[in-house]
């Protein structure tokens, strides 16, 4: 199939997210501002005010209310979105779980920002990593293009009848949300066709077939419901792949669980999420031209965690560094480090070195990443306790 003619736009990450939302034209959007997400919803609210979308905007008084409105509207059968960051996501917490547990296919861009205290508006992944156990699918985006592509795919993934789980599409606050860069967008019609209409399985508003959402569920059935939810998350992998492939046929940009950059013959691989994966690719390019066999594995799908495929992709490496942009406070290492190490357990004996970096927006550049490759080459590993990288001693 021939890929479609794209329109090239100069958009910030937030504008790219808003553009995807405009094309999706959700039936209901709940909005509450928080830096650095504010600009995204601001832009989308303009589309709504200008009649560019038919969306019912619900302007709420907090993020707890934003997610509550989404839960109600999604259970009613609507296609629903909201967006947030940091403390906003933290305030939603209770309802974030309710959304996933009621199997409501809500799509939510999360513009990654550090959690307080001390107060900080810049990027780290503490907010979305805190949601890793909430039952939401999580897609991490490297740049504005991926923000756009992931949000469109998220609708299809969430609404798949075999899955029915909400999806967070994350991208790095300021680093991506406020950087203007090139984004190639599909024609509106192509996006509408790709996502189709939502056909809810059990809409609350179908009065001929009354259903109840969220009743009391004690020792008798709660556990069974949790198991179903876990199975839906496991099955989501195949759907994410299929949707990523179909999106590739449409746009020329195919997506999977992760992106393997120069890894096939690499001795040393850095695994990272989000914008840092891009910077790591630039570092790998430089080191490759100096003859070093290095590569980057960018993890796109953190929930569900693609353990088996990831382990296979890392199998040929002599050592791996995992970069976490959140602390996790396990005393061992960040959430990605622990998942990767656990994925390799009993499969491959490869040293996995953990790095916690970039908290509160601390910058990471090509030289710093090159020094991590240097650590791996020299056999300086942080296997039992992740290093805090780029911090003042």
């Amino acid at each position, binding site marked *: 199939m021939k890929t479609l003619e794209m329109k090239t736009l100069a958009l*910030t990450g937030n504008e790219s997210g808003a553009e995807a939302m405009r094309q999706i034209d959700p039936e209901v959007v709940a909005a509450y501002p928080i830096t650095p997400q504010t600009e995204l919803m601001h832009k989308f609210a303009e589309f709504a005010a200008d009649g560019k979308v038919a969306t019912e905007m619900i302007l709420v008084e907090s993020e707890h209310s934003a997610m509550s409105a989404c839960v109600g509207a999604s259970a009613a059968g609507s296609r629903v979105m909201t967006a947030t960051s940091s403390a906003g996501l933290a305030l939603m917490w209770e309802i974030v779980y309710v959304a996933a547990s009621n199997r409501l296919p809500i799509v939510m861009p999360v513009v990654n920002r550090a959690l307080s205290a001390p107060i900080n508006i810049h990027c780290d992944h503490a907010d979305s990593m805190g949601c890793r156990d909430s039952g939401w699918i999580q897609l991490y985006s490297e740049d504005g293009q991926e923000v756009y592509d992931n949000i469109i795919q998220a609708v299809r993934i969430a609404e798949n009848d075999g899955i029915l789980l909400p999806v967070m599409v994350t991208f790095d606050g300021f680093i991506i949300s406020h950087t203007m860069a090139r984004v190639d967008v599909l024609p509106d019609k192509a996006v509408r066709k790709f996502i189709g209409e939502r056909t809810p399985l059990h809409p609350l508003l179908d009065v001929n077939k009354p259903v109840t959402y969220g009743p009391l569920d004690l020792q008798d059935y709660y556990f069974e419901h949790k198991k179903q939810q876990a199975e839906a998350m496991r099955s989501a992998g195949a759907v994410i792949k299929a949707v990523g492939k179909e999106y590739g046929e449409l746009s020329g940009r195919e997506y999977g669980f992760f992106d393997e950059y120069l890894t096939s013959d690499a001795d040393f691989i850095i695994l990272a999420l989000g914008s840092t994966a*891009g910077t790591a*690719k630039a570092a790998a390019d430089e080191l490759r031209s100096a003859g070093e066999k290095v590569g980057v594995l960018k993890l796109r799908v953190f929930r569900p965690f693609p353990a088996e495929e990831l382990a296979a992709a890392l199998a040929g490496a002599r050592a791996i560094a995992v970069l976490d942009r959140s602390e996790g406070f396990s005393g061992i290492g960040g959430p990605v480090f622990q998942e990767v190490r656990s994925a390799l357990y009993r499969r491959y004996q490869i040293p996995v070195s953990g790095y916690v970096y970039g908290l509160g927006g601390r910058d990471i550049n090509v030289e710093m990443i090159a020094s991590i490759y240097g650590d791996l080459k020299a056999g300086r590993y942080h296997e039992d306790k992740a290093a805090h990288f780029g911090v003042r001693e």
Partner: protein
Amino acid sequence: MIEIRWHARGGQGAKTVAEFLALVALHEGKYSQGFPEYGPERAGAPIKGYTRVSDDPIRVHSAIYHPDAVVVLDPGLLALPEVGEGMGADTVVVVNSAAVPSEVASRHGYLSGKKLWTVDASGIARDEIGRPIPNMPMLGALVRATEAVKLDSVLENIKKEFSRKFSQKILDGNLKAVRRAFEEVKGGE
């Protein structure tokens, strides 16, 4: 790839021009990034902006540490050590100043030997736009000094973008200011 770092004070339009140059580059079919360094938003405080322009996709997402060009919108900022940080032998420096380059270099030792250009961007902006906002004329000067993009594409995109937000008078003033700065900027030796 060309990497440009903008030094300005809050209110001088560094964020706008860093992003606008990225937009112009995109219209030339290139890849680009434009972004400011976000800190406390105070008018008059020193701020930085960044622009990358490349023929190939840009993957790096850090600040710019080794700029190919440094644009200084307020000459008072030249006293800050961060303006000189990461400059190499070939770094192009464009300063908003009515003084000639040799005079500016004599006051700031780290600039001697650099490809230094000066232009009275505030004066041009005052004459042509009516307010001493130096960002757009500094873009004209930068284009002359680096050829990061073509002057015509800058002018064309000003027409397209500014017509949505500003009066014809402001639009024409910006066009004139950019052209004048492109012609009047001195130096580069």
